[in-house]
């Protein structure tokens, strides 16, 4: 869907002054703070992070300023206009083909020397430019200052210091952009010969590098550094060949431990809040207004049973995204290519591949897109085939439900095993591809390690919220819709018992496929079908069916003391918060010492009756391995084409089925037929 801005940018007609529109493109090295500045300028909330390659597609925003409509497009980071990776191609294309009115060149001031090579190359294009000397705070700490007057005199480009973290100086970019546009201030490099680097240039590129070096020496001012460089000291430990690996394992362990233990009390609380409080409140209110039984049934079964059930897991999802965002914003994620390169080599990939894989732990969709940073198309293909096996929070929701129910004592172990299985299958897939379709040597790699940065809580909060909102949105739309449809289908044909309903018939039709995995119950097999849309839909689906079968909550709630019950919820939340914090500081993973709540207990019992531990494992494995959701399929098709995406579907179903089969049958043998 080409946006207005895209059309505007690609139109080659000169700007008509009466339209008063300026089209600005943000260009700069990776991780220089381009997206941060765009967010500040237009109030958007695009993802930022402290590693190169956060933005892999164009992002657009608009701001009205002094009667002008300033349309700004943010681009992936580039070092030169000679792109290699796909994300760089996107940026270079926009800058060279579409010719924006103004280029906003964002520079990481502490690394000005490196940034200027791009600035010089951009300046050659003759498009009015403004330079944002970003990260002025860090430059100051490092004792570096830039002489903006000298810079302007030598280049014809206005340069302004900015601080993306605080927003300082950011608004001042707008008048500078307008001025550059209105007066058509084209860059004019006036670098004297004696300022150039002493290396004899052998090509145009060399000459450019020489000019950049000369410019750098002419504008940089060194002062006393105001802080000590922490980064080098921390890297001594975290990048140590042995210590670094130990630290990595510790980080991953803490990631899971805190995700589980901190969120568990909150999940208990949400569970009680939704089914015990909201559910009863709703039934109570509906009873008061004399709603027909069908409506009460719909609310308690489809809304509370289906959607509410899934929403219970929000604390888990929020905690996980919070920790992942911390890893990314601190700068640790950017170090993993260095640390884990050896392991990735064994898979036929270079270290860079580790970043999309780790992002997959958050959500597979952006992870698949992040493969655009890979320089080789074959690496990208292999990586795209691996990512969906990285388990995401949506699948974790399903795992934690089943693990708790069937392996209460060993829930954490079972969940860990699921994650490990996903990684193993990803590894196997890449080894298989390495040996067959994609025989190749490992691609060389160069990657810059950003300094460690203390994440701002607000930025982290915004990012976490955007993920949680996505999950809630899915619960409110997709899962709600599926719950409603199931609810209706379970009641169809009219008057039929659930086990004779349409859903039951569909479920029974696919039983033969899943019978060898121990999945014979129509309620289970039918829930596998909508799980293709999103994993947690399976739970919402089952929740609805079982809630209907229970037919429990339709009796009116006579006594509902709003004040007392509300107070109870608030107190409960406080206790949950305390428990969460306490659990984080304990050794080992405690995972969900759930107290059964009245209302959900019935549901749990019902699920327990339709599985054995063995078939529950098989069910989890299927949901782990078979594709990951419709969204991932869509983005795979976009990134690598339908042929590979369909190929992956087939492969993942095959692997999922076979592994589930082996596990289920082995479990049966070991446990003696259970």
């Amino acid at each position, binding site marked *: 869907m080409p946006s207005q801005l895209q059309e505007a940018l690609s139109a080659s007609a000169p700007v008509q002054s009466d339209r008063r529109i300026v089209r600005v493109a943000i260009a700069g090295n990776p991780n220089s703070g381009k997206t941060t500045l765009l967010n500040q300028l237009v109030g958007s909330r695009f993802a930022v992070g402290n590693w190169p390659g956060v933005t892999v597609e164009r992002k657009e925003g608009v701001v009205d300023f002094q009667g002008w409509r300033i349309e700004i497009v943010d681009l992936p980071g580039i*070092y*030169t206009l*000679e792109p*290699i990776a796909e994300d760089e191609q996107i940026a270079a294309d926009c800058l060279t083909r579409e010719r924006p009115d103004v280029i906003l060149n964002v520079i990481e001031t*502490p*690394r000005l*020397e*490196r940034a200027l*090579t*791009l600035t010089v190359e951009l300046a050659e294009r003759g498009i009015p430019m403004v330079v944002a000397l970003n990260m002025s705070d860090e430059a100051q700490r*490092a004792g*570096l200052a830039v002489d903006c007057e000298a810079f302007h005199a030598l280049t014809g480009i206005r340069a302004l210091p900015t601080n993306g973290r605080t927003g300082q100086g950011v608004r001042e970019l707008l008048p500078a952009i307008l001025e550059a546009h209105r007066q058509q201030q084209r860059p004019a490099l006036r670098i004297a010969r004696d300022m150039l*680097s*002493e*290396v004899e240039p052998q090509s145009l*590129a*060399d000459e450019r*590098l020489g000019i950049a*070096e000369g410019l750098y020496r002419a504008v940089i001012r060194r002062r006393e550094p105001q802080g000590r460089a922490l*980064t*080098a000291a921390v*890297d*001594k430990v975290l*990048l*140590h*060949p042995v210590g*670094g690996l130990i630290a990595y394992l510790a980080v991953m362990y803490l990631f899971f431990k805190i995700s589980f233990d901190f969120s568990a009390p909150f999940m208990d609380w949400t569970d009680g809040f939704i089914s015990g409080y909201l559910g009863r409140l709703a039934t109570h209110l509906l009873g008061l207004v004399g709603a027909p039984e069908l409506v009460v049934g719909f609310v308690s079964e489809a809304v509370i049973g289906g959607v509410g059930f899934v929403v219970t897991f929000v604390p888990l999802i929020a905690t996980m995204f919070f920790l992942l965002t911390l890893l990314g914003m601190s700068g640790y994620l950017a170090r993993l*290519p*260095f*640390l884990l*390169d*050896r392991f990735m*080599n064994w898979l036929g990939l*270079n*270290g860079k591949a580790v970043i999309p894989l780790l992002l997959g732990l958050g959500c597979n969709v952006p992870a698949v897109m992040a493969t655009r940073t890979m*320089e080789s198309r074959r690496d990208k293909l292999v990586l795209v085939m691996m990512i969906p096996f990285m388990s995401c929070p949506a699948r974790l929701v399903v795992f934690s439900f089943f693990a708790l129910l069937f392996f209460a004592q060993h829930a954490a172990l079972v969940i860990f095993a699921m994650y490990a299985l996903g990684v193993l299958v990803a590894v196997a897939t890449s080894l298989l591809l390495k040996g067959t379709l994609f025989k190749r040597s*490992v691609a*060389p*790699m*160069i*990657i*810059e*390690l950003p*300094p460690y940065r203390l994440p701002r809580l607000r930025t982290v909060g915004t990012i976490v919220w955007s993920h949680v909102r996505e999950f809630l949105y899915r619960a409110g739309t997709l899962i709600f819709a599926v719950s409603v449809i199931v609810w209706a289908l379970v009641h169809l044909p009219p008057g039929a018992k659930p086990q004779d309903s349409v859903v039951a018939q569909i479920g029974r039709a696919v039983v033969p496929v899943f019978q060898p995995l121990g999945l014979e119950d129509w309620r289970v097999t039918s829930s596998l079908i909508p799980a293709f849309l999103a994993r947690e839909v399976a739970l919402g689906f089952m929740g609805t069916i079982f809630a209907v079968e229970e037919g429990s909550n339709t009796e009116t709630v006579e006594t509902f003391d709003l004040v007392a019950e509300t107070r109870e919820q608030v107190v409960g939340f406080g206790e949950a918060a305390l428990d969460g914090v306490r659990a984080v500081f304990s050794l080992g993973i405690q995972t969900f010492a759930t107290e059964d709540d009245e209302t959900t207990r019935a549901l749990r019992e019902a699920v327990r009756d339709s599985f054995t531990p063995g078939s529950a494992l098989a069910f989890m494995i299927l949901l782990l391995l078979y594709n990951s959701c419709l969204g991932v399929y869509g983005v795979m098709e976009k990134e690598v084409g339908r042929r590979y995406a369909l190929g992956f579907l087939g492969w993942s179903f095959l692997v999922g089925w076979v592994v589930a089969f082996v596990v289920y049958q082995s479990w049966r043998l070991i446990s003696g037929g259970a």
Partner: protein
Amino acid sequence: MTLDEAKHGQVVRVVQTRPELALRPKVQAIGLRAGREVRVMSRNGRMLLVQVGEARVAVTADLARCIEVQ
């Protein structure tokens, strides 16, 4: 010699980056180019961590082999 032969802690000066290097424009733009001083900060298997100016850069040994230093 080439950059991959440089020892931990050693400071070397780049003589040239070989033209056959596929990532050459990027490598040069990041700072690994003729005339620049490079300090080897750490090594880990096939990876080298070097300091170029204010930037910390990780490169693979096969890439470092295409960078002549002295």
